């Protein structure tokens, strides 16, 4: 699976690892629901560093669609909410 971290680029992450990422993703989502800025930045930092650790960075010349997109580590609650407002409600694949 290809994961984009906004402002940083794309990573190829083994499909098997997505389950682990989903757990971290839930924490991010929870932080947004609870409007907890500190929790959000901590959860985001964990999630992103996990992606960077288990993933392989794609080279700049590759033109590929990402399967998943993540906000960058400096994103505030307002940033994430603005991004989510732009997107339609999606469904978790699998």
């Amino acid at each position, binding site marked *: 699976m290809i994961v*984009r971290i*906004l*402002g940083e*680029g794309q990573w190829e992450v083994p499909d098997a690892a997505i389950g682990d*990422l*989903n757990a971290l*993703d*839930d924490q*991010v*989502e929870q932080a*947004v629901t609870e409007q907890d800025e500190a929790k959000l930045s901590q959860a985001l930092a964990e999630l992103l560093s996990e992606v960077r650790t288990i993933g392989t960075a794609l*080279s*700049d*010349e*590759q*033109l*590929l*669609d*990402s*399967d*998943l*997109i*993540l*906000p960058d580590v*400096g994103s505030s609650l307002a*940033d*994430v909410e603005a*991004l*989510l407002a*732009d*997107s*339609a*409600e*999606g*469904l*978790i*694949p699998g």
Partner: protein
Amino acid sequence: MAGIFQRMSLIFRAKADKTLDKYEDPRQTLDYSYQRQLELLQKVRRGVADVATSRKRIELQANGLSTQADKLTQQAQKALEVGREDLAREALTRRSGLQQQLTDLQAQHAQLQGEEEKLVRASQRLQAKVDAFRTKKETIKATYSAAEAQSRIGEAFSGISEEMGDVGLAVQRAEDKTLQLQARAGAIDELLSSGALDDATGTQKDDITLELEQLASTSEVEDELSRMKASIGSGPSASTQAIGGGQAPALEGQPVQQAPAASTDYQGQPTKAAQPNAGDLR
């Protein structure tokens, strides 16, 4: 509920789909998209330049503030040397206010530097992708019919438009941050040029400097006064001697010449004493 992950992945795709639908011949989309990519690259480069300009401005301001903080430290030192602890305290209080501003500026500087690095990296990434896209675009246009090109274009196009969406967001965010910081930087510049900060920071003659100067001139006056007092203290005894010495020759019939000399000398003394008084008023 879908995670952040899934929901965000739809952001750019929806926009890409909309653009693709606009053209009957999908190959037109390629040319249109390529134009947009070049425009965006220009915009990113301008964004980098803007951020760099703001960063330099903050560096200048920080330098100015730290010079003023140093000056206040020196003032505090000077005030202590002349035994004015109250003045020293005032100077140090002001310095801690400046220090706060300086810390803020340094944080902003770090933030801007981060934005600048991100944008530089983004423009490199976009450049590489734009180059890849151009190659792909020419291949698709040359090789495939409109119908065949459709699916190929979809791939290339959504890949690049996602990148453009990402970079576009980065530019927008950098612009927002830069604007905010410029507004603050402008406010500090205005304060500096209006002289409102000068009072507190000592770029020109603030009240601490004035008071220190006053102290210095007062002590000069005191020194001068005591020097004069000392010379006057020896003066009268000398003239008494002269008068006393003159009294003997007076008997010899020369008192008329001696007396005027003694009185001139005597008149001279109040005149000298008036000088320190005038200095006191200064």
